[in-house]
C-alpha cells in the first residue's frame, strides 16, 4: 500500500537526520535521566562538599552553580586544592570537587575535561554525595554535548545553543523542587521518574510533531506532493500517507520514552493497555498538529524554530513542567484548553491512582476530539491548496 510505503520512506529519511534523531530519541531520555536522578529522592539533610576553582572559566562557574543549587549538597568554596584536600582529610566536608584551569576552553573545543573528585580513602564519601555530584556533572556534560551538536548542525552559536539546552532542563527542575514542597497533595501525584517520564513523553511528542510539520512543508515546496498527484494515486491516499508519516514518528518517540521509562527508569505506567492507548491517541493529536501546521506555514524553518518554544510554553500550561494540581484554578482551566493537560491528567490517573481505561475515558475522548478536529482542518486546508 502506497501510504505505508510513504511512511516507510519518511522513517528512512528521519533515520539519516542525526539532529532530528538526537531530539527525538536521545534528548528526552537524557533529560528524564538527569532530572529523575537529581531530584528522585529528595535528601532530608544537605551533605557538605568543598569546591576549589583553579580558574575553570564560565562553564566552571555553571558547574559550581549547579552544585550549589543541588538540594542534596551544602557546597562550600575553598581557595585552592590543597586547602580542600586538608578539609576532606579532617572530615570538615565529606568530599571535594576541583574545577581545573582550562575546563571551559576544553569543553567548548570538544576536548575531554576532568573535574577531580576528592575523597578520603579511609572514609569513602556517602553515596548521595557521589550521586548528586555526578548528576550535576552529567547534566552539564549532556547540555554541552547538546549545545555542541546543535551549534554544529544548526549553525547557531555555542552559547545560544547551550542556553537553550539549559532552559529545557531548567524549567523542569524547579518543578521537582516545588512538587516536593507541597506535602499534603503529594500522595495523588506521581514522583520521580513516574512524573518526569510521562511529562517528557507528552512534552517531546508534541514538540516533535510541531517540528515534524517541516517535512510536509518541504515536500510541498519541492513539488514532491504535486508530483505524487500526477501519479495514479488519489489525493486521499497521499494525505493519508503524509499523516501516517507524522504518526509513525510521534508514535515511535512515544514508545521509546514509554519503553525506556519502564525498563530503564522503572516507571510504573499503571494499566499497560490503557497507557498504550493513551500514547497512541496522543500521537494522533501530534499528527493532527503537524499536518495542520504543515498546511499553513510557508517554510520549513518556521516549523523547526517555533516547535520548541511553542511546545515548551504549552507544556508549562499543560502540566508537563509542574503538576497542574499545584497551580491556581484559573491556570488549570487555561491549561485544559490544550491537549497536554488532558494527556497528563490521564497519565497521572493511570500511574498514581491506578485507574483503568474506563477511568481515563473522558481524557481519551477529549484527545480523540482534538485529533479529529486538527486532522479535519488540515485535510480541508491541504485539499484546497493542492486542488489548484
Amino acid at each position, binding site marked *: 500500500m*502506497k501510504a505505508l*510505503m510513504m511512511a516507510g*520512506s519518511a522513517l*528512512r*529519511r528521519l533515520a*539519516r*537526520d542525526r539532529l532530528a534523531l538526537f531530539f527525538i530519541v536521545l534528548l528526552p531520555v537524557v533529560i528524564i535521566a538527569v532530572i529523575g536522578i537529581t531530584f528522585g529522592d529528595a535528601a532530608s539533610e544537605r551533605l557538605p562538599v568543598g569546591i576549589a576553582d583553579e580558574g575553570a572559566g564560565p562553564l566552571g562557574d555553571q558547574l559550581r552553580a549547579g552544585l550549589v543549587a543541588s538540594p542534596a549538597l551544602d557546597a562550600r568554596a575553598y581557595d585552592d586544592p590543597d586547602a580542600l584536600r586538608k578539609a576532606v582529610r579532617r572530615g570538615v566536608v565529606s568530599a571535594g570537587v576541583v574545577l581545573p584551569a582550562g575546563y571551559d576552553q576544553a569543553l567548548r573545543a570538544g576536548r575531554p575535561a576532568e573535574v577531580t573528585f576528592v575523597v578520603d580513602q579511609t572514609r569513602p564519601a556517602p553515596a548521595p554525595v557521589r550521586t548528586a555530584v555526578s548528576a550535576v556533572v552529567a547534566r552539564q556534560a549532556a547540555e554541552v554535548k547538546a549545545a555542541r551538536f546543535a551549534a554544529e548542525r544548526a549553525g547557531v552559536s555555542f552559547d545560544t545553543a547551550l542556553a537553550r539546552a539549559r532552559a529545557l532542563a531548567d524549567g523542569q527542575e524547579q518543578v521537582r523542587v516545588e512538587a516536593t514542597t507541597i506535602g499534603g497533595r503529594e500522595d495523588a501525584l506521581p514522583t520521580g521518574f513516574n512524573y518526569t517520564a510521562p511529562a517528557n513523553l507528552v512534552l517531546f511528542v508534541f514538540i516533535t510533531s510541531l517540528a515534524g510539520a517541516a517535512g510536509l512543508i518541504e515536500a510541498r515546496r*519541492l*513539488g*514532491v506532493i*504535486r*508530483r*505524487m*498527484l*500526477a*501519479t*495514479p*494515486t*488519489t489525493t486521499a491516499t497521499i494525505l493519508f500517507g503524509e499523516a501516517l508519516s507524522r504518526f509513525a514518528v510521534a508514535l515511535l518517540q512515544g514508545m521509546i520514552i514509554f519503553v525506556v521509562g519502564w525498563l530503564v527508569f522503572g516507571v510504573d505506567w499503571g494499566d499497560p493497555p490503557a497507557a498504550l492507548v493513551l500514547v497512541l491517541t496522543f500521537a494522533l493529536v501530534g499528527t493532527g498538529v503537524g499536518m495542520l501546521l504543515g498546511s499553513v506555514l510557508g517554510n520549513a524553518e518556521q516549523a523547526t524554530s517555533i516547535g520548541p518554544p511553542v511546545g515548551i510554553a504549552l507544556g508549562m500550561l499543560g502540566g508537563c513542567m509542574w503538576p497542574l494540581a499545584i497551580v491556581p484554578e484559573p491556570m488549570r482551566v487555561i491549561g485544559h484548553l490544550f491537549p497536554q493537560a488532558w494527556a497528563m491528567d490521564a497519565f497521572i490517573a493511570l500511574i498514581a491512582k491506578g485507574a483503568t481505561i474506563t477511568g481515563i475515558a473522558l481524557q481519551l475522548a477529549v484527545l480523540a476530539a482534538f485529533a479529529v478536529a486538527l486532522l479535519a482542518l488540515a485535510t480541508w486546508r491541504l485539499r484546497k491548496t493542492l*486542488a*489548484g
Partner: protein
Amino acid sequence: MDNDPVLWCKDLRKRFKERLAVDGVGFEVAPGETYGLLGPNGAGKTTTISMICGLLRRDGGEVTVAGASLDRDPGQVKAAIGYVPQDVALYPDLSGLENLRFWGRMYGLAGRDLAERVEATLEVVGLTERAGDRVADYSGGMQRRLNIAAGMLHRPRLLVLDEPTAGVDPQSRNAILANVEALGGEGIAVLYTTHYMEEAERLCDRVGIIDQGRLVAEGTRRELVARVGERDRIELAATGDLAGLAAVAARVDGVDEASVVGGGVHLVARDGRRLLPRLLEAAEHSGAEVTSVELVEPDLEAVFLHLTGKALRD
C-alpha cells in the same frame, strides 16, 4: 488503434483571477511523435500541461490520454502519463536509487519489475554510477536527468516534459535531448515544452506555438515556415564572373532576387531547397565557378516574430 492519438485535448481554458492563462488550447500527439509547445515565459505552457496531467482544475476543455477520459478515468490517464515537472521534484535526502524506487512504487511498480526498470532507467540517463549518492549531492544537470528518469520508469504512453533543459549545462543538455530523441523512436508520445527555438527544431516532429494562452500556429517546422511565407536565402560563394552568375540565377524560376555580395552571390527564393539542383545547373553556364552553397531557411524564431510581433526571448 495504433494510429489513434495518445493525447487528445481540446479547448482547454484556465483563468487565474483576472488573468486568462490558457484560452482554448487543443492539440493531438500521435504514438512516437514528439510534439513541442514553444512559447515565451508566461505563455501558458506549464498551465496547459498541468491541466492535461490532472494537476490543475480546468475551467473548460477535454483531455483524453490513451483512450481514457481525464474526467471519467483520472487514474487511468495518470497511469498512462509520465510527468516531468519543470522544477526538480525529488527527495534530496534520498539517493538516486531510492528516489526512483519511491516514484516507481507511486506509479504502481513493484518487485522484480521495479528493480529492472530502475536499473534500466538509471542506465538510460547515465546515472548508474552515482545511483547510491544522495540527490542533494548531485550537480544540477544530474538532478534534472534523475527528474526525467522518475517520469519514465513505468513506460508511460505519453511523456510530458516541462522545460527539462532550463538552466542546464551544455553537456547534460545534450544528454537530455538525446534521451528524448530516443524516446520517440520507442513509440512513446512526447509532449515537450520549451522556449528554446533550437530545441523545438531539433526534437519536435510538430510544434505548437503558444503565446498569451493561445495556440497561434501549429504544424511541422516546414509547414509553419511556409505558412508564414518567409523566403529562403541562398548564399553562393563563387569565383569568376559574379555578375554573370547573378544574372543567370535571377532567371531561374522561384528566385526573386539576386545580388553580388562580397565574394559571392546572395539570392532570395521561395522553397530554396527544391530549386537548388536547377540553380547549380544554370550556374554551370554562367562563367563563374560555385565553390560552396549555403541555404539559410527561415527558422521558428522568425515564425514567432511574424505571428506575434515580438521575439521569443526578450
